[in-house]
């Protein structure tokens, strides 16, 4: 269906490009110390990126509608996660709520 050259060019460019993004700072900065303020900022990398990825997907489904169940499951994950500090418990609770209730109705 696709031209093999088209597909492989994309795979290789995307593979090399992605690796270069991943290597960027780790590779080029090496053991030179980062500025103190920059280091302070980077402590927040996980909470600065991941919630942003989640927000649109939790607030709208594939058809662009608001699906309350997603927000409820997300709230359950956050509350259980903050409270128990356990990844396994919060993931299982969230997925059970979302997929369990979806399966029922």
């Amino acid at each position, binding site marked *: 269906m696709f031209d093999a050259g088209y*597909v492989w060019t*994309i795979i290789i460019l*995307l593979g090399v490009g*992605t690796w270069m993004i991943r290597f960027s700072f*780790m590779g080029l900065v090496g053991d030179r110390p980062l500025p103190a303020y920059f280091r302070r900022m980077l402590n*927040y990398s996980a909470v600065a990126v*991941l919630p942003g990825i989640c927000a649109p997907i939790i607030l709208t489904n594939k058809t662009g509608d608001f699906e309350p169940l997603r927000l409820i499951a997300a709230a359950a994950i*956050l509350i259980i996660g903050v409270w128990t*500090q356990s990844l396994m418990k919060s993931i299982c609770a969230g997925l059970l709520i979302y997929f369990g209730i979806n399966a029922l109705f």
Partner: protein
Amino acid sequence: MQTQGSFFRGFRQGFWSGLPFALVLGPFGMLFGVIATEAGLDLAQVMGFSVLVIAGAAQVTALSLMNESAPVLIVVFTALAVNMRMAIYSAALVEHFGAFPLWKRAVAAYWLFDQPFAMTAVDINKNPLRSRDERFGFYLGVAIPLGILWYVVTYLGATLGDLLPTDIGMEFAIPATFLALVAPLLRSLPHLAAAFTSVAGTLVFASLPFNSGLLLAALLALIVGAEIEKRLERRRPADV
């Protein structure tokens, strides 16, 4: 601040910590295998994506643009934009892996997807005293098993194809695990404020092209986190 602790001890702990993600990466990788095969890629090409790119969201983005017969450069740049967030991950790990020889950093870079990064970031908060080697072991202990799982399930999806359901709400399951990941960090005020900034920023900048809204929001969130941390530190002596 170095303590003893071996690579293998870290690897074992990373392996167990990362295991819950198998629950969602398994079906997601399978889904990629199925839809890529349905789109007309052969097995080698499907596996090429999962082994050489090893980034689910970018793989799906590339595939959907290829289905629209987009030119090579558009496909590549749009999918790379989805992966730009990994530059932030790379910067955050400099402090921990930067002193390693180049080949180790090159290997670490290959495995830098969301789950190993985020698990390592959470672990840095929880266990700040791990040695470099143990930290590296922890990171790879999360990454390598999940990466191999990614290859295997892609293969299963590509070969079993028709037998597997594809519309099972996977697009919610991955973000759900991201929330679970950051939840333990949200007991600290600067982390909580950064997370709110990330959410608000991404929604406000949603219309910006090439995923740049997410990156702009992330940048603001990093600054908010750092500023609040700085202010709390300044106030602390007065509190005592």
